[in-house]
């Protein structure tokens, strides 16, 4: 019985937990492994929030340094990645505030929009609309489109849909209620969809009409 419990315990333990324990014991190479594992994600989040490459580079360094310094405060009741993401989001928001001369970032403000209204655009997309663009063009479209979203929608969409955090984790990370996250997610998704329709629908129309006007 004890052996079974031990085996189950080993199976359930996330590999990060062992790395964190080694870091706590002074093994810097274990932290090297954690940085390598999550550096792309931290950079991506920082870029999405700050929308500035230099800021994202600084945030990435500061976030990993802060996590290293505070590793003893990591409780282990959440995943290490979620804890790290929270640090990265906070560093990004602080950086954004600094860039705006101390003006608060509007993540916790309610954004007045036409919530619940039915989308106007009825046009369907091509089956694989992204194939009409090369990778650089597509990245440009996606970047431009998401940068046009209100901050509160953009950050929720990134954490929830791009980074795969749960609704609860997103709420905890941003200090928002679960209903507030849900509301922002729906509006963010719908606004992105409508904005992308301009690109994916137009191209489709042009093809269907043999090149358009």
């Amino acid at each position, binding site marked *: 019985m004890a052996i079974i419990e031990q085996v189950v315990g080993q199976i359930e333990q996330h590999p990060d937990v062992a790395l964190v324990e080694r870091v706590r014991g002074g093994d810097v190479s274990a932290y090297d492994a954690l940085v390598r594992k999550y550096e792309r994600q931290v*950079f991506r989040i920082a870029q999405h929030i700050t929308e500035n490459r230099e800021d994202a580079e600084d945030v990435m*360094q500061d976030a990993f*340094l802060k996590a290293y310094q505070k590793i003893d405060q990591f409780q282990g009741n959440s995943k290490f990645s979620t804890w790290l993401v929270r640090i990265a989001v906070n560093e990004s928001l602080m950086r954004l505030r600094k860039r705006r001369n101390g003006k608060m970032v509007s993540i916790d403000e309610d954004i007045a929009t036409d919530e*619940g209204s*039915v989308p106007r655009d009825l046009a*369907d997309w091509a089956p694989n609309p992204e194939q009409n663009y090369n990778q650089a063009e597509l990245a440009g479209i996606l970047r431009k489109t998401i940068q046009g979203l209100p901050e509160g929608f953009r950050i929720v969409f990134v954490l929830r849909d791009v980074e795969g955090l749960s609704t609860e984790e997103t709420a905890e990370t941003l200090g928002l209620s679960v209903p507030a996250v849900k509301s922002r997610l*729906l509006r963010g998704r719908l606004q992105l*969809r409508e904005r*992308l329709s301009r690109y994916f629908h137009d191209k489709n129309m042009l093809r269907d009409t043999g090149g358009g006007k």
Partner: protein
Amino acid sequence: MTCREFLALLDDMIDDTVTAETRNELRAHLGHCPHCKVTLDTTRKTIEIYRSNEVYDLPDSLRERLHAAIMARCMKGC
């Protein structure tokens, strides 16, 4: 079910957090409402495109430079 009611449950349908009964109601609405069908399909596609494409690239050279800088600062114990 109206389009407005459908829209209020759109995220739950996409994230598959609805009961079987609600899912059937949503499907019934989709059966006769091409507008909501397009909204659902293209919203799903929006999420998928953002998930599967790197919007901001991090070239290996920059990643290595930042990685080295992070580890150097950690080694110094600052």
